[in-house]
């Protein structure tokens, strides 16, 4: 017996010995060790996937340039969320920020998670240790959030460079975008846990593209007939778009809180389903 393992064993056995088992928050679901999953993800991502990282960021920026500057020259000004006249670029920029957050979160929580779940069998290995399914779910979702936050910060910087950030409160768009990313990441991981083939993943892009185009991203919701409006309002991206648009204009209202609540519920459901699914897949 060397001396190293003794201290190590003591440190790791203490929180898991039967006497204190009841202290584990959420029992066997959570080991308070999200950090290990997150750290592993950082290590694995570092030095790889940079092209995908950058493309996810560049896409909305290109839309902002093409639509905002190009199309914006034809359109001129539009009515913003507070009723004031704003440039078309200022109108679509927060919407594209929401899209940017969604893209980052969805890529990580669907494609990446699917691969780790079914091919790399990473979660199987993790869940054979002291980790609980909630540690794995939250650790992986946090990685998606980090990516979402990086996209959001970059995009906000581009907005600022284009003169589209007009008040300090507009900087609240960054944490708000992270909330949007959190919603999509936890929900995306929950859905991915049910997928069995790569073909089923195509359904994700099949839903994402129309949602991007039609969620009042480029024009107001009022252009649609009532029934279509209801459909759009049921989908998450519209809430993200509206929330960020209101924050960027400083036009806060009860609606802003409503949009935020939508994401809180989405996050809660996504986390719950993901945790249960991981448990059912690997610990039943």
């Amino acid at each position, binding site marked *: 017996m060397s001396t190293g393992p003794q*201290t190590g064993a003591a440190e790791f056995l203490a929180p898991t010995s039967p006497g204190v088992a009841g202290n584990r928050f959420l029992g066997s679901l959570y080991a308070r060790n999200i950090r290990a999953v997150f750290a592993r993800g950082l290590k694995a991502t570092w030095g790889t996937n940079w092209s995908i990282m950058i493309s996810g960021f560049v896409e909305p920026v290109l839309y902002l340039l093409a639509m905002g500057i190009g199309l914006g020259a034809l359109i001129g000004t539009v009515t913003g969320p507070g009723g004031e006249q704003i440039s078309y670029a200022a109108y679509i920029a927060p919407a594209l920020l929401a899209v940017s957050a969604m893209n980052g979160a969805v890529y990580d929580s669907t494609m990446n998670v699917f691969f780790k779940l079914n091919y790399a*069998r990473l979660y199987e290995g993790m869940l054979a240790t002291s980790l609980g399914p909630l540690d794995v779910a939250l650790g992986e979702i946090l990685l998606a959030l980090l990516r979402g936050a990086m996209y959001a910060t970059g995009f906000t910087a581009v907005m600022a460079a284009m003169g589209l950030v007009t008040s300090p409160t507009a900087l609240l768009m960054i944490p708000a975008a992270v909330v949007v990313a959190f919603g999509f990441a936890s929900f995306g991981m929950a859905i991915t846990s049910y997928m069995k083939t790569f073909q089923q993943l195509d359904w994700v892009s099949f839903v994402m593209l129309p949602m991007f185009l039609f969620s009042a991203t480029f024009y107001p919701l009022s252009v649609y007939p009532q029934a279509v409006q209801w459909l759009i309002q049921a989908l998450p991206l519209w809430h993200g778009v509206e929330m960020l648009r209101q924050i960027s204009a400083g036009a806060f209202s009860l609606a802003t809180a409503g949009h935020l609540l939508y994401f809180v519920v989405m996050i809660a459901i996504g986390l719950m389903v993901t945790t249960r699914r991981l448990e059912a897949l690997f*610990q039943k």
Partner: protein
Amino acid sequence: MPQITTSKTSAVSGFQGPVIAASNLTKSYGDFTAVDGISFAVPAGEAFGLLGPNGAGKSTTMKMIGGVSRRTSGELAIMGLDPNTNGPEVRAHLGVVPQQDNLDEELRVRDNLLAYGRYFGLPKSYLQPKADELLEFAQLTDKAKARVDDLSGGMKRRLTIARSLINDPRILLLDEPTTGLDPQARHILWDRLFRLKEAGVTLILTTHYMDEAEQLCDRLIVVDKGTIMAEGSPAALIRTHSSREVVELRFGSERNTTVAAELDGIGERLETLPDRVLIYANDGEAALEAVSARGLRPITSLVRRSSLEDVFLRLTGRSLVD
């Protein structure tokens, strides 16, 4: 060669008795019963085997012991803990080598060990020297910075075993540890497992290779269709359920069955398989001479000692490897 270090005290303080105790352990998936009321106990430090064909319920049993599959009924205690209610605590005491490697291919070899150790909440100060020690044990020190993808099958298996030892487990679960490896890689692996056994680690392994079971196991259970067919040391099982020697005769697939009738009375027992006829006898050479005396000329003949394969054949009427 560094010795692998393990703690001599029980991981659960004050725990005595068998490290694994199963009684009437059952696992059903709907109508299908994968494990059907098996009972066994494993004392600390033993190398205990589950021998049986694919689908016998070995892996399901391993998953229940490993705290990743909940039993349907019966009792199971790992170091005195119920894995159904104390899953994380049970898993903290175990090392798991799954049937299929699930190494982290996005991390380098040494980082695989460090990341896995962190899943157990182990501090870096412990993990750094431990990882180096385990790499040396697994004979992978010069591969520390290699990609997992670039390792051979045998190296991946050794890395998986090294990884399973990162939390200094008292019990090591090995599910088909050498399946798919070439003979040389298997022998290297067996040697590593022997060392662990000498260091006092309890080994639980499933296999469908009888030579592996004979080499490694102090005691084993023969499992078929979710039930235990026999239990004992490899030598005792062979003594009880088979003769000392076996004559294997091949007459060509067309003739095996017809010739078998003419062999009646030679040896203690006859077993006719599609590709060969087996004569169980205490003196194989004498039995073979008796075959020649009857004017029968097999294409090939072989006299060998009885193995666990014969035990399994006797108990179930089927071969282990289909």
